[in-house]
């Protein structure tokens, strides 16, 4: 049976690398989201604290 081994190699090699690439990007994106959400939450908390201090 005639199999296009060139294409097969492309799918296997390039495909596998692509999966890693996509998931690494996802990991970075999710990590970044975590960092940003964390910073926003901290600054909100600090903003709230400062307001209370000013009032008192």
């Amino acid at each position, binding site marked *: *049976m005639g*199999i*296009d*081994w060139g*294409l*097969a190699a*492309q*799918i*296997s090699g390039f*495909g*596998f690398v*692509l*999966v*890693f*690439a*996509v*998931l*690494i*990007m*996802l*990991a*970075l*994106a*999710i*990590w970044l*989201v*975590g960092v940003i*959400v964390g910073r926003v*939450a901290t600054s909100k908390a600090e903003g709230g604290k400062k307001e209370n201090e000013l009032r008192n």
Partner: protein
Amino acid sequence: MLGFPQTGLADLTLGHVLLICVGLTFIYLAIVKDFEPYELLPIGMGLILANLPGTGLLVQPQEVGGEFGTAGLLGILIEFGLLRYTVLPLLIFVGLGALTDFAPLIARPRLFLLGAAAQVGIIIAFLGALALGHFGIAEFGLEEAAAIAIIGGADGPTTIYVTARLAPEMMGITAVAAYSYMAMVAIIQPPIIRALTSKREREIYMEPELREVSKTEEILFPIVCLILIILLVPRSAPIVGMFMFGNLLRVSGAVERLSDTAQNAFINSITILLMLSIGASMPAELVMRPETLMVLALGLIAFACGTAGGVLMGKLMMLVSKEPFNPMIGACGVSAVPMSARVVQRMGQEANPNNFLLMNAMGPNVAGVVGSAVIAGILLSVLG
């Protein structure tokens, strides 16, 4: 004059009888042994219905001159739910997304790497199937090889979706292989994990609980994943889109009724339809061929190599990581959720009774679902 009612006995072949017995076995396994009952019971029934001759259930709707002729119930479900338009497995993904908790992965995004590494099983099975095709042992071309390989994604609906689009005559058998091996991870994975890790490594303690994940992160996760993955691999959109949509229903907190429905009534209804159709897609004519055994063997190889790949990546991360990292959780990249994670939890406690790896193991487990969806998209964009 009305035709005299014919019994089906005359048309019953040995192949039919065999598959009816297989169907009965599945039903037995489901009821008595509690072996993947939600899949095997309807699949078993579908198998029986497909292999009793003369029922008319399997007649598929054919378009003749712009109109559809008569068709059987199962034929309709198979044609419109799986073959012509592969709708049923995609709808299952809405339910699966609604049932999936991504918090363990959001808390440690590096675990995505394990979800990627475990997909090596798919690649190896792909090449193995092609080799069989190359040497004329089986009629496996690129499409068939991809459909067989995706069994290694350890995800039923992904397997069904890819096979329906690339090699529909194998839909039933790849699905059965996938669900069976998922149920057997407790037997398949431990020997491989033990072979690739030392006792010391298996004892490595990891903090059982992960950091608190905020609601905002949980909401942004499916949105970010969906947009990023679909931009990079557009053909993964049907699976990833539905999966992340389901997850958003769950985490948004704004649509409790929809989330509840997706997790219960909706996914159960679609499961009934899908599993029955899958069983019905296996009449003896399609299944009684040597290729079937080869598919089963390659599927097992996919699972085994995926486990190995995940564990090896786990070892790499263990060496590089600042915090303690138990390489066993790599095996959970084989996305049999939550079976793989439970296997690792048990093995972890065997090695070290105070070690509760479950939450850490869930991270790679759910990452693997994403990983196999991405690979499915890649296969479909080249071959579909």
